[in-house]
């Protein structure tokens, strides 16, 4: 039988009349939140408000700007740049669909079929992140170069005839066409699709597949009725994580496209940094923001997944 030696000294009784340390830490959450939220308010919320006011100002760089509630800026911006808006939505939506089509099999492969290769494939999906994405995007210039092996193969298979007919490519080249921009967008945001898809697929109990098979479901039916519905949270957050940044992107359009593939991001960037027409630029970015918030809200409501964060 063990003995207990060296009993620690008994705890001191509380000082008489000492205030009970109850309701402790009522202010703690606010103190914890304060610095971070202040940062977000000053450098995120406030700028957005500033921008709203800039968009209804008139004036010039030399004489300064004044708020004149000049809402016509919005109308002018829209009527002048609507093709870029439409292009942004079409390119971003195409890239999102492509990401889903390409990303789903890979996420499924990692979640259910990779076995001991799972970690390695995961690393290979994430690792490209560590090379600057600009360098990797520039590599597409080499891959899709005129007369290169990829374009040659597509040409030989008459794929380019089809895409040219659809208006995606022109003159037997891929670079500087919408196809190249969408290809670049898809490539850049593919991991943002794969990771949420993998997370929600990985949570699915493999026994559910067995149960579905046991209950007379073919593999395709199992996928349609069990796997895909259960992966919906991943599909929703994956499509959002792809669509939102893709619609505001201007790097792929700039590096891989031409003046005919300019997206709204390109316009905002050049208005802000080159033309220095701040009201128009602010109006454009405000429209983009509003459009995206509207899309996100509707989409989240429709898909019924409120807890993305």
């Amino acid at each position, binding site marked *: 039988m*063990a003995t*207990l030696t*060296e*009993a620690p000294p*008994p*705890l001191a009784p509380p000082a008489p009349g000492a205030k*009970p340390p*109850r309701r402790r830490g009522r202010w703690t959450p606010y103190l914890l939140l304060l610095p971070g939220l202040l940062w977000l308010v000053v450098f995120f919320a406030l700028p957005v408000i500033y921008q709203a006011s800039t968009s209804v100002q008139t004036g010039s760089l030399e004489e300064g700007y004044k708020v004149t509630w000049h809402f016509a800026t919005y109308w002018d911006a829209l009527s002048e740049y609507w093709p870029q808006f439409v292009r942004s939505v079409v390119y971003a939506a195409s890239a999102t669909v492509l990401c889903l089509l390409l990303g789903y099999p890979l996420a499924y492969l990692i979640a259910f079929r990779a076995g001991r290769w799972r970690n390695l494939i995961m690393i290979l999906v994430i690792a490209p992140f560590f090379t600057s994405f600009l360098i990797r995007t520039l590599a597409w210039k080499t891959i899709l170069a005129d007369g290169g092996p990829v374009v040659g193969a597509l040409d030989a298979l008459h794929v380019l005839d089809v895409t040219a007919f659809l208006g995606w490519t022109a003159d037997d080249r891929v670079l500087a066409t919408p196809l190249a921009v969408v290809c670049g967008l898809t490539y850049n945001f593919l991991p943002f699709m794969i990771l949420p898809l993998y997370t929600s697929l990985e949570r699915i109990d493999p026994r559910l597949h067995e149960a579905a098979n046991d209950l007379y479901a073919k593999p395709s039916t199992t996928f349609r009725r069990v796997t895909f519905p259960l992966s919906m949270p991943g599909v929703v957050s994956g499509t959002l994580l792809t669509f939102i940044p893709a619609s505001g992107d201007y790097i792929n359009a700039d590096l891989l496209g031409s003046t005919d593939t300019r997206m709204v991001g390109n316009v905002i960037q050049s208005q802000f940094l080159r033309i220095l027409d701040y009201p128009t630029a602010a109006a454009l970015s405000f429209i983009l923001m509003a459009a995206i918030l509207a899309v996100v809200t509707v989409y989240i409501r429709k898909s019924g997944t409120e807890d993305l964060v």
Partner: protein
Amino acid sequence: MKTTDGTTTAGGDVRLTGITKSYGDFTAVHPLDLTVPQGSFFALLGASGCGKTTTLRMIAGLEEPTAGTVHLGDQDVTALPPYKRPVNTVFQSYALFPHLDIYENVAFGLRRRGIKSVKKQVEEMLELVQLGEQARKKPHQLSGGQQQRVAVARALINHPKVLLLDEPLGALDLKLRRQMQLELKRIQTEVGITFVHVTHDQEEAMTMADCVAVMNAGRVEQLGTPADLYENPRTTFVANFLGTSNFIEAEVDSASGSQIVLKAGGGKLVLPEARNSAPARTGGKVLLGVRPEKISLTHADEAGEIPEGRNRITGRIAHSSFIGVSTQYVIDSPVCTAFEVYVQNIDRDPRLVPGAEVVLHWNPDHTFGLDAAQSLLAGTVGSAGVGTAGEEVA
């Protein structure tokens, strides 16, 4: 070992005075007075949501009482935060620190109180719970039973005045639970510290505790030794929650001296005055209870061989199930449907099959009487406030 080092002997009673806990409109614990004597093994027994865990957490200081006080011996600890109370807890699912090894888990409390040389004590404590070999493993590398022992060691090493155990065996399988019940009992006897044990498992409470408080809907229904609670339940809740009881609604025929004679379904049944907790006016109603294992079963053909002076009722066997040590019968009788009877498998009468007419009889001393103004089903599985075992969540 009975400690004589002063930390656990002098006035180690736990005294709860009018302690209450409400969350908004919901009252989890109604004003409760309870004294747990120094050195005892005390169990708080009840179904999930009955307030037993809340009571325990108020003793630990993890929950702030809405009203009332907690005393440890002479010291009022109501206002003390948990880290200043000489009380330690074995948490449900143990709450072992996953980032520390077993040794550091056990040493945690000593180190927090600034004790430098912990080696000897930790090693002794790990010996006590037979885990000396595992000192450098992480919690997730141990089995459930081993984790449970670490949790006990981690709390006991601090020589608390009281050790609180919150469903400590809930996560273990049945066999291991039995083994750990004995183990905990051994440790308690060895260290002599007051144990307050919260459980929903009546068998566990009865096996281990010297004294059991049965709680229901935020109140203590009855307090007593396990045998006392089982033999003399004072409410249908206690009668049903601890084991199984059969009830007959009866009318008081006459009360003379030490015996009350009751009428039920034309027959007469005898109830000892000492075992009745209901008002017994002639013509009044009383709930007569009897435990299934006290009853003998005789085939109707041999009714004449039953000795005089025994309570008897007639019925027909509706079901029988053979469960090894005994056979359990469910009997339909005019005074009570679904009367349960457990018969030891000594000599089985082949005529006792479903459909057979039988006479149930028992020694009147085994009868208890309860107030008829309460639900017969209180405390049974499926009734309000009683969930299936093992779902208690802190």
